[in-house]
């Protein structure tokens, strides 16, 4: 078959585009640090508007639409990068470049998720194309809105540290902000119930995970790692004494934190900066000050960043020393960017191994460890050791229902497979539901409650031995609505003041992972009320919802929740 270019070669798969590496205040020799990134090549209409992202540059404050950027068609032979040779001022003054910057970073994060999970990944909002508004309104704010199928990026007047005049700050030009919001949209697509009110952990997870993805995305750029390493980007060698986890925190990450969000300081206390302030060796999880969801998210970010440094340093052991304790700078940079990229892949892949409701940091850690064990059973790179140690130093232990090594237990129950066809289970939720139903006893689903299969998704990835590993991931959710007084009989604690006739919904659910032969490999579940631990979890969830005012008044519950989200969006700008 010939393609449109009249040749029998495949079309090019990637397009290179210039972006601002972190944000315009991150400069080297008074020039904005840039990067060229690869994004999937695709057919584009003006916007750019592609198969997953549609940039519409509408400004609601000024009520104007800016001209769309026209990148050339994905069917052309070459894809020139229109801003490669433009001056810094031209980049700042041209809304087309802002559109390109946002488009490219969103697509890069999307591609990262798809590569990690081995399948197409949907946005949390309906429809295929997510709208991106690079100058949505005059407000120091950026967010993902499921209902509006969009990422909104605001702009505002800001004063850079040490300067007198103010200048316009565009959140769509900040790599970490764009990556953060994109991650919200993708995580929402993978686990839609994570935006529902549950535990402090779950509320904190969306923020923490979006921060992690954003930071690792920034750190996976060679240009960034090179720039922050020890302040001498042009030297060929680097002294090994700069290459310990402690030294890397002091030099690289601290200087990155200082650069990041200089112009956004005060609005985003910079996730990185906040997390670096958290010294390991303290039980943050049970600390009163870290129950609030934004602060709590920092714990997760801190544990991941410290793991990243350990992994980077471990990789450097394999990089030889050139002369008198010095190593080749390019290799050090490359290993750093690779470590970030690798950890990001793990972080994303772990979502497939998380329960669909009531997520805890402990469960996420077990998911991370399991993902790694699947790929590297003997832990020869020490990733699991690094994760366990660093998470423990912030008070996060693996899930109590996990195996001794912290990974999820393999399912060893006998399942009924004869009533379902695996090939249709791969894509058919009805068939998957039949499997769940036939096995409700083996899956310990209990006798009561409504059950629904939420998704069935294939996952394909390449194992280290080069073979293709295929899995199928299904999520089911259980719901049980009871009056508060009935819960008491089940042992669930009811907060003082909650009316006894009030309806309360409990959630349970699990993720089922099937191997390539259709056998159930893992059931990662939070059961409704099977054990004391489940009952405790339900009590805690209700107590948390009660404290956040969720049950305050049935008529206002819905709008209350909207307000909670607003409060969170407001604080977002502080913790982002």
């Amino acid at each position, binding site marked *: 078959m010939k393609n449109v270019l009249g040749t029998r070669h495949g079309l090019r798969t990637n397009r290179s585009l210039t972006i601002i590496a972190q944000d315009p205040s991150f400069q080297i020799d008074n020039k904005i640090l840039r990067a060229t990134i690869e994004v999937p090549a695709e057919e584009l209409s003006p916007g750019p508007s592609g198969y997953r992202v549609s940039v*519409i540059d509408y400004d609601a404050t000024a009520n104007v639409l800016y001209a769309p950027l026209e990148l050339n068609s994905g069917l052309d032979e070459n894809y020139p990068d229109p801003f490669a040779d433009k001056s810094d001022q031209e980049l700042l003054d041209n809304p087309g470049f802002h559109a390109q910057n946002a488009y490219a970073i969103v697509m890069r994060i999307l591609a990262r998720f798809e590569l990690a999970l081995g399948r197409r990944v949907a946005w949390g909002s309906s429809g295929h194309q997510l709208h991106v508004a690079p100058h949505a309104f*005059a407000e120091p704010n950026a967010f993902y809105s499921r209902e509006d199928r969009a990422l909104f990026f605001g702009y505002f*007047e800001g004063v850079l540290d040490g300067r007198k005049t103010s200048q316009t700050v565009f959140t769509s030009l900040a790599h970490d902000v764009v990556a953060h919001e994109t991650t919200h949209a993708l995580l929402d697509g993978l686990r839609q119930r994570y935006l529902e009110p549950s535990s402090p952990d779950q509320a904190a997870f969306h923020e923490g995970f979006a921060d992690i993805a954003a930071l690792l995305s920034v750190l996976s750029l060679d240009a960034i790692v090179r720039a922050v390493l020890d302040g001498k980007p042009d030297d060929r060698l680097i002294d090994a004494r700069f290459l310990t986890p402690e030294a890397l925190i002091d030099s690289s990450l601290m200087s990155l934190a200082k650069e990041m969000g200089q112009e956004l300081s005060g*609005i985003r206390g910079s996730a990185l900066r906040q997390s670096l302030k958290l010294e390991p060796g303290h039980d943050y999880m049970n600390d009163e000050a870290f129950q609030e969801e934004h602060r709590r998210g920092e714990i997760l970010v801190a544990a991941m960043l410290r793991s990243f440094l350990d992994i980077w340093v471990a990789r450097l052991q394999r990089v030889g020393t050139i002369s008198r304790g010095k190593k080749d700078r390019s290799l050090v940079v490359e290993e750093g960017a690779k470590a970030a990229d690798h950890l990001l892949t793990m972080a994303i892949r772990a979502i497939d191994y998380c329960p669909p409701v009531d997520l805890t940091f402990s469960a996420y850690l077990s998911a991370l460890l399991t993902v790694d064990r699947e790929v590297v059973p003997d832990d020869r790179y020490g990733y699991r050791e690094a994760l366990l140690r660093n998470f423990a130093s912030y008070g996060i232990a693996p899930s109590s229902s996990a195996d001794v090594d912290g990974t999820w237990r393999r399912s060893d129950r006998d399942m009924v497979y004869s009533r379902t066809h695996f090939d249709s289970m791969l894509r058919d939720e009805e068939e998957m539901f039949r499997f769940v139903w036939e096995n409700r006893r083996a899956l310990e689903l209990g006798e009561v409650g409504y059950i629904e299969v939420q998704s069935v998704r294939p996952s394909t990835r390449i194992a280290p031995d080069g073979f293709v590993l295929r899995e199928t991931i299904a999520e089911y959710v259980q719901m049980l609505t009871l009056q508060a007084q009935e819960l008491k009989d089940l042992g669930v604690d009811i907060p003082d003041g909650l009316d006894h006739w009030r309806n309360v919904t409990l959630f349970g659910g699990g993720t089922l992972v099937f191997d390539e032969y259709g056998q159930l490999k893992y059931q990662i579940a939070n059961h409704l009320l099977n054990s004391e631990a489940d009952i405790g979890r339900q009590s805690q969830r209700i107590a948390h919802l009660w404290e956040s005012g969720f049950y305050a008044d049935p008529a206002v519950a819905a*709008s209350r929740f909207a307000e909670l989200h607003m409060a969170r969006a407001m604080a977002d700008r502080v913790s982002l």
Partner: protein
Amino acid sequence: MKPSRVTIRSYQVGFGDCFLFSVHYDNGDSRHVLIDFGSTGLPEGVPKTRLKAIAKDIQTVTGNKLTAVVATHRHKDHISGFATNEAGTASGDIIAKLQPDLVIQPWTEDPELEETATAPRARRGRKNLSSAARHVRTLWAMQQVAAQVWAEAKRSRSLRPEMRAMLGFLGENNVKNLSAVKNLMTMSKNKKKNKYVHAGTSSGLEKLLPGVNVDVLGPPTVEQHEEVGTQTSWDNDEFWVRLAAADRTSPPSGMSAKPLFPKHVVNREKYRFPVNARWFIYRAKRLRGEQMLRIVTMLDDALNNTSVILLFRVGGKSFLFPGDAQIENWEYALAQSNVRKLLKSVDVYKVGHHGSRNATPKTLWNLFEHRSADKHDAHRLTSLLSTMAGKHGREDNSSEVPRKTLVSKLERESTHFTTQNLAANDLCFQVTFDL
């Protein structure tokens, strides 16, 4: 001299508060305290000169002398009546001539605090501020933001009419009312007679009102507030300061906003946006409206929570005037056991914040021991409500003011008076309490 009678005049100001609290003594003497005087909208048929008419009525009733003025918080609907004009003929000028011996305002109005908090260095975050000054700076920034939102709502051609009305109302109510603020600061002539109070301080009223006990139950200071462990989203000081400085497009009201990139604006044919962009533009406009509404609502709540809460006790009866205090302000008072004890015996309750859902916490309402369904109960709780429906909040999310469920509770369990029952030409209703 002993107090023998208390009268309360509740003036018809539409959406707003204006109460004249008068203590009458057995020797024929009377002392008068004006609690708030403002309006953000009059009912149909009420003449525009209403505030001035009220000021004149107060002048007559008090015999040209006010003992004290209380401005519970700086919202327009509580202080616009204090505004003056150059000719010296405005309602605020008339009140100033009644020479109050004392002007009571919340601690957040302390001009010294405001000066430190809003100095340029403080605004740029280059100065370490006390927690009190930081809070005042936040409030200052919020008012700037309110002005911006109000301007944006006024010039916007894309908001739904109801949204515009709500934004306009809240924006206007939260914008700083300069002449009224200045008048309150200066009307007592002697600076020492301005009291900026917080929970637990003396009101200074006892000396002026023989036989009357007055407790200040709110607002708490930041330290007191933190003590009870509340932290609200709006209390995020840096954020508001930045937000206040953020709006580069805000032109003088009425004009259209300047675009960021004039050379790149898409020309519209007959005001129509390109077809492909319309769905999204519609959503973005709607979102912007909701977002501005949430922002001004937060400002509104924050200022309401600076309300002075006063409890008057005289001759075995107690009268509660909480301004527009909402739950965050109340939390501090309600956490003190001695205050809870005092609140149990409240006889007269000025309904908080015009009857909104957040201003009469259940924990407060349940304390009132004089609540009674029996209309003939001699000790039955009296409730006074100054409000106007259709101005604030909306029914679709139960935020309408007055909140219907609250009004029916007030009607059921108290002897309820509301300004909504006044005819357009009635200036006020007066309730008398014999002691």
